[in-house]
């Protein structure tokens, strides 16, 4: 260890000209925010019947298959001419591998 290093507690001379190294976390913050805001905006701006629709679809499916809330997702994607109601239902693996119900389309 040379004199300089000793003087600055092990800091290399070049480090003095660089910003102190901390993790650059701002980009992570931005990405996380973009995801959560996109989800929350669609949840808050969709038509008010969506949560109830999701609940009722769930009840119907539960008559036949054992699934819970997390296996159903309903989203409305707005387009200029038509909107797409996207209903994804994950079914348990048995007796057949998981399949997706067809997507419903509705003019909105």
């Amino acid at each position, binding site marked *: 260890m040379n004199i300089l290093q000793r003087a*600055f507690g092990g800091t290399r001379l070049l480090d*003095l000209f660089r910003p102190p190294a901390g*993790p650059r976390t*701002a980009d992570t*913050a931005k990405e996380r*925010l973009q995801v*959560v*805001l996109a989800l*929350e*905006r669609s949840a808050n701006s969709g038509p008010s019947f969506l949560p109830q629709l999701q609940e009722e679809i769930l009840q119907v499916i539960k008559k036949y298959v054992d699934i819970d809330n997390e296996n159903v997702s309903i989203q409305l994607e707005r387009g200029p001419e038509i909107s797409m109601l996207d209903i994804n239902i994950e079914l348990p693996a048995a007796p057949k591998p998981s399949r997706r119900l067809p997507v419903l389309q509705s003019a909105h």
Partner: protein
Amino acid sequence: MARVIVITSGKGGVGKTTSAAAFAAGLAREGNKTVVIDFDVGLRNLDLIMGCERRVVFDFIDVINGTARLNQALIRDKRVDGLYVLPTSQTRDKDALKMEGVEQVIGELRRDFDYVICDSPAGIEHGAQAALYFADEAIVVTNPEVSSVRDSDRMIGILTSKSKRAERNEEPIKQHVLITRYDIERVNRGEMLKVDDVLEMLALPLLGVIPESRSVLQASNTGTPVILDDASPAGLAYRDAVARFLGEQMEFRFVNPQPKGLWDGLFNRLWRRSA
């Protein structure tokens, strides 16, 4: 006829009351008769920030309940002409803010003042909704930090859908974003969201960027709106923001790194490491 401006954020502790006090004092200093109302019933603090806590006799809730006249509750600021404070009650709960009463008080203030500033409580409950319901414009105060940006986004949704203007299909509330506690050094090190990141997500026009500054605490210690501190970077940034609000074109200060000599930088770094 006054413009009614709500200072809101969703999240607490981001600088709503500091900003409300600064904006009210700044608008009054520019010759506008301005009143700032504390909507945080039960947790009153605007009086402390404005330095008039020992002059409160009657409050907003007394006026709503008819136990005092508006003139008895308004506190005239001793430093700035045309600046008034309407403090809130420390003892009652938020349900004391009856909407009809709030409407009546704001209606009366609209006739006498140029600007009515509503200092919203944190949260999205009744007090916050009462503060924004009658607003013509909104200043959404945001820190460059994930929870604050998310709450601001939520609040923008509420401003867009739950105000009197929205319910009556009138011209929507004009919204602005004010970024506070901005630390350019941390932004440069990649530790803090940039102004552009925040604007990209909130999609509102930028009214100002207030730098993190020791003078904000100093101002609150003494009950002086920080905008009255001519030596404070935060005070200067608030002045720019008020000027922009009044339609002036102002360059953004404190957003880009201050040019520093090599030796200043080296000195700071050595000092910080040994500290």
